[in-house]
């Protein structure tokens, strides 16, 4: 009898210790996974951030120091009397201040225009019934898949015919008028608005434009914010159209100015990196300020 009881207790002990062991193993395993995950995250973050870091360091070096071997991380210009010499040279002597102004103007106008055209079209696609609606919407999405190379040659010929070369117009108008992505984004957003709001307003005698303007637009503020920053960033970074349409140096945007500078001063890395920082920094600030809207906007482009 006593033996049996002792055996039972032993078995019980074994079970308890086995369970404890399992828990300990589990905790150990999750510790190991966490370390592995954080390790990988850090490695990827390093690969992602290092080029930006190196750009920044180089932009604060004396021009001769970039050709000193082995390369070092010392921003040697900071110890001189003119720590921002590369920046002042690029901004004023090479006119990057003006290019930044041009980029700001083009990106703001195009993005604001996209908000108007895309929200108007999105409202109609989401809330109204009209002939050919699905065909038009399908065509719009289809054009997202057509490479820009297919349409850019006729577009160029049109701009020549219109006499728009060396104006801001070809940088703004095409982007402003075919916001396929934006129309898609806002259509999806407007579809989620309950119909009762619309009906109540109609009964009160509101015009369709008033419904759009005073009910739908305010409700869509987060989606509009996403679209604005995304369109702004895309237009700020655009290279192909400035390359094709702008030869007047006073109208250059930052990416065009940067490639021109590269053509003229191929190995002036301190200047080129200062120019790169100037064209990236505003976008990084926008990104940090509006990260939520940007991430949300891009993420929703993947969900049907």
């Amino acid at each position, binding site marked *: 009898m006593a033996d049996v009881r002792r055996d039972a207790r032993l078995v019980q002990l074994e079970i308890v210790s086995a369970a404890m062991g399992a828990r300990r193993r589990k905790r150990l395993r999750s510790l190991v996974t966490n370390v592995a995950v954080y390790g990988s995250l850090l490695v990827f973050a390093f*690969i992602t951030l290092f*080029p930006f870091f190196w750009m920044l360091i180089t932009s604060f070096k004396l021009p001769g120091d970039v050709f000193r071997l082995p390369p070092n991380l010392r921003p040697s210009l900071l110890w001189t009397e003119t720590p921002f010499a590369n920046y002042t040279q690029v901004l004023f002597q090479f006119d990057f201040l003006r290019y930044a102004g041009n980029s700001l103007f083009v990106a703001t106008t195009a993005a604001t225009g996209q908000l108007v055209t895309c929200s108007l079209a999105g409202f109609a696609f989401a809330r109204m019934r*009209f002939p050919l609606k699905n065909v038009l919407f399908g065509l719009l999405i289809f054009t997202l898949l057509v490479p820009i*190379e297919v349409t850019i040659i006729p577009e160029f010929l049109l701009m020549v015919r219109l006499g728009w070369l060396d104006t801001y117009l070809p940088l703004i108008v095409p982007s402003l008028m075919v916001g396929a992505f934006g129309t898609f984004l806002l259509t999806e957003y407007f579809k989620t608005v309950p119909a009762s709001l619309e009906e109540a307003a109609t009964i009160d005698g509101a015009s369709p434009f008033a419904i759009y303007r005073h009910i739908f637009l305010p409700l869509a503020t987060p989606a509009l914010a996403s679209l604005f920053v995304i369109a702004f960033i895309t237009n700020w970074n655009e290279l192909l159209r400035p390359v094709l349409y702008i030869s007047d140096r006073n109208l250059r945007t930052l*990416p065009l100015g940067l490639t021109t500078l590269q053509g003229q001063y191929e190995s002036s890395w301190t200047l080129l990196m200062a120019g*790169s920082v100037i064209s990236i920094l505003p976008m990084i600030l926008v990104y940090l300020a509006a990260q939520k809207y940007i991430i949300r906007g891009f993420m929703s482009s993947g969900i049907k």
Partner: protein
Amino acid sequence: MRYAKFTPFLFILPMLVGLLVFRLIPIGFSFGISFTSWNIFSPPRWIGFDNYRTLLQSPAFWEVARNTVVFALVFVPVVMGLGLSLALLVNQKLRGSTFFRGVFFMPYITSIVAVALAWKWILATRFGLLNNALMDWFGVQHPPSWLGDPRYALFAVAFVLAWQSAGFQMLLFLAGLQNIDESLKEAAMIDGASRGQVFRFITLPLLSPITFFVLIISLIASSQTFEVTYALTGGGPQRASTTLAFYIYQNAFVHFQMGFASSLAYTLLLFVGGLTLVNFVLRRRWVHYG
């Protein structure tokens, strides 16, 4: 809701005009141009299929076509692999994962010209950081000229573009991962499935519609590489890193051969369209719609 008949058209008018003038008409128009010889200084001349015949017989075209395929074969798997890995990593509910997500997405919103310049400087043959690291830390005697050697230039361009855009693929995958019902994974775990099995038999199949979408997006992105090539190699050395999109730009806007460039553009469209179609046909084999 009922609206007056013409109202919807007033709302879509600006977009409709844009769609016609900048998309649909140009798509048709460039098809027409592709049957002409046209250097924009003299009027176009109808030459039938000559442009297509010329391009099929030109070794330069086949070199560029091969580059385009190789580029896609390198870029698409790399960017998708990176995107999925990053998404899986930031999807672990660990402290700081939002921060890392923000970091990984950052290159995508920065000017490709600027980051291409930074990479050009890192990859520079003699004074570049990478080659000096290879020599000093790994004892490599004669590190290659990444952008100047025809064997490596195309791969370097593909890598830089993948580095810049992986954050976007990550976001798309992340949206897909967050849509997966956690209880399915838990149920499988209770039934004794290992983490690897859960990933292989639950996560991957449920993610496959997004994977398909990302595949199409990445293929299209890889067929449109202009900016990164322009800033990094200019298509060189010789034609080693020239892909079809860049070749179109050169023919149209450097040599002003609008007709020939348009025939190239239509070849590109055919290539992208064909690949997309093949993918849609193959989709049934591996994409699961739950």
